[in-house]
């Protein structure tokens, strides 16, 4: 409870952080309590009620946000879709971030052969188109939620790896790192004390930017049939479903798009606040 009140006291007065956390709380609630919140079964098809417009645009109150091409209730699908999108976005970013930070620090701190191998790996991976790589991996592993997260995590580490490596290279020449060595501290203690804390702000900003990419990337994979099973609602697959109807039934693609946008926005707002509050030099102004 003390942590909560501490975070609360920090957030007060910073409206963007407040708005961000409110939005994200809504999304998390939707994911946690989807069966309670969704008015319909997200998979139930009512072909006679296909492509109904949302309630405020001439539709019925039965389907508040309208229906898709199979007559499924959009609101229910968005509420359930929060589960997959949030899980994929956060888990893949976490996996990519941890891998990238680890390899980047190793590469920057130890140099030599480790550095060459890691950077070559990054180059090879960058040279390969993401879809091609994902295709190959998913073909071997088979579709499914876990494998989507795995693929996105594995392809996403490169950006962290390269940025963290270059930051590490500049940090390890800092005089306070030299002072730490002069005191007799080893490399791992230096990494924990001096390198990691100074890398976190950059990593956090990268991560918040990447969540959006991950949610979209899951959509691309699902669209190609290499993601999760098509009947499990996810914002990405809803977006690509609605693509074909954008001129006749705009709501099918628009609402999942808005859901993605708001989620990404909330994560970015929280990320900015987190980065600033981790910097003691800016603390007084927060």
């Amino acid at each position: 409870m003390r942590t909560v009140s501490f975070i609360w006291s920090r957030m007060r007065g910073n409206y963007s952080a407040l708005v961000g956390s409110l939005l994200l709380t809504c999304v998390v609630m939707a994911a946690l309590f989807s069966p309670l919140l969704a008015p319909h079964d997200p998979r139930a098809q009512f072909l006679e009620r296909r492509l109904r417009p949302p309630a405020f645009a001439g539709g019925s109150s039965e389907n508040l946000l309208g229906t898709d091409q199979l007559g499924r209730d959009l609101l229910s699908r968005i509420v359930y879709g929060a589960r997959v999108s949030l899980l994929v976005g956060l888990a893949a970013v976490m996996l990519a971030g941890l891998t990238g930070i680890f390899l980047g620090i190793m590469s920057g701190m130890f140099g030599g052969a480790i550095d060459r191998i890691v950077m070559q790996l990054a180059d090879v991976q960058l040279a390969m188109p993401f879809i091609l790589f994902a295709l190959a991996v998913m073909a071997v592993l088979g579709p499914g939620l876990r494998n989507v997260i795995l693929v996105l995590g594995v392809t996403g580490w490169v950006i962290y790896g390269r940025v963290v490596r270059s930051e590490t290279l500049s940090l390890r020449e800092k005089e306070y790192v030299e002072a730490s060595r002069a005191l007799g501290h080893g490399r791992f203690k230096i990494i924990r004390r001096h390198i990691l804390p100074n890398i976190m702000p950059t990593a956090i900003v990268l991560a918040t930017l990447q969540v959006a990419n991950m949610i979209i990337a899951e959509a691309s994979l699902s669209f190609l049939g290499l993601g999760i099973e098509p009947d499990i609602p996810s914002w990405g697959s809803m977006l690509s479903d609605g693509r074909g109807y954008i001129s006749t039934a705009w709501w099918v693609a628009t609402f999942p798009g808005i859901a993605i946008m708001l989620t990404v926005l909330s994560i970015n707002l929280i990320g900015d606040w987190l980065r600033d509050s981790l910097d003691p030099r800016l603390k007084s102004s927060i």
Partner: protein
Amino acid sequence: MNQALLRVEELKKHYNLAKGRTLQAVDGVSFTVRAGETLGVVGESGCGKTTLGRTVLRLVEATSGRVYYRDRNVYDMSPVELREARREMQIVFQDPYASLNPRMKVSDVIGEALEAKGVPRRMWTQEAEAVLDKVGLSRTAMSRYPHEFSGGQRQRIGIARALAVGPSLLVCDEPVSALDVSVQSHIINLLGELKREMHLTYLFIAHDLAVVRHISDRVAVMYLGQIVEMAPARSLYAAPQHPYTKALLNAVPNPDPAKRGLRQIISGEIPNPECPPPGCRFHERCPVAVARCREDVPALKSVGASHMAACHLLEEVKEID
């Protein structure tokens, strides 16, 4: 007083650059520092003073040479032995803004040193307050971050961190050159007091001749990675022997117009250390150079009582022990 705490022999640090070029930052430096003594090292920027300080502590690996601390070669030590030896040899850095991690409170900065020394955690507050008190900072400093302090105060924190492990030798790498002149004297005086109080030995690196004169027992003058003159401070300032030292001292502005006389300023730039001139490294800029200076490398020889200089034009004096 006579026991050599630090003995450096033929220390060299050559940096390999691209295309097979090498930069001779430190090239065959030898000296000793007795326990309780302060050896000042002066020279222009780029002469290798800072690299010298780093290689002595093995923060930068030397290319060759030996550094004996209490008669043990630092370059023969295992990582564990080196870690232990480092508690006795500390460094104060030039830039107090770069030498403190902006994300660590002062208590953590000192705590890092106390951890290295092996002080149990429950003693940290007490020990940290004691060492902060020594450098003239109050205990309220403990919970604050480096950016809340001025340059002089930051340097005091840096000194406190070095002293917290209880060293005997302190390498001061231009500890005041980044500070305001008014603050410089405070830090210099503090270092002087600490030396007396804690029986410290200093290797004091600086480019400011006045600062070095004030604090040093002996002074070594460096030029392009080599020591060209080394003597007790008094005799070096009163009777410099090497033309380079003379020129350096000449360049110090004299506030008294009557004593100014003819100032001889050395011409030219410090040569590129990637390809130092043959013979005496100073001959291109030397006002009294002769033909021999272009070919023979002068050795550091005794030219007076405890006074060493590397110049062909000086007579060698045999010291009577």
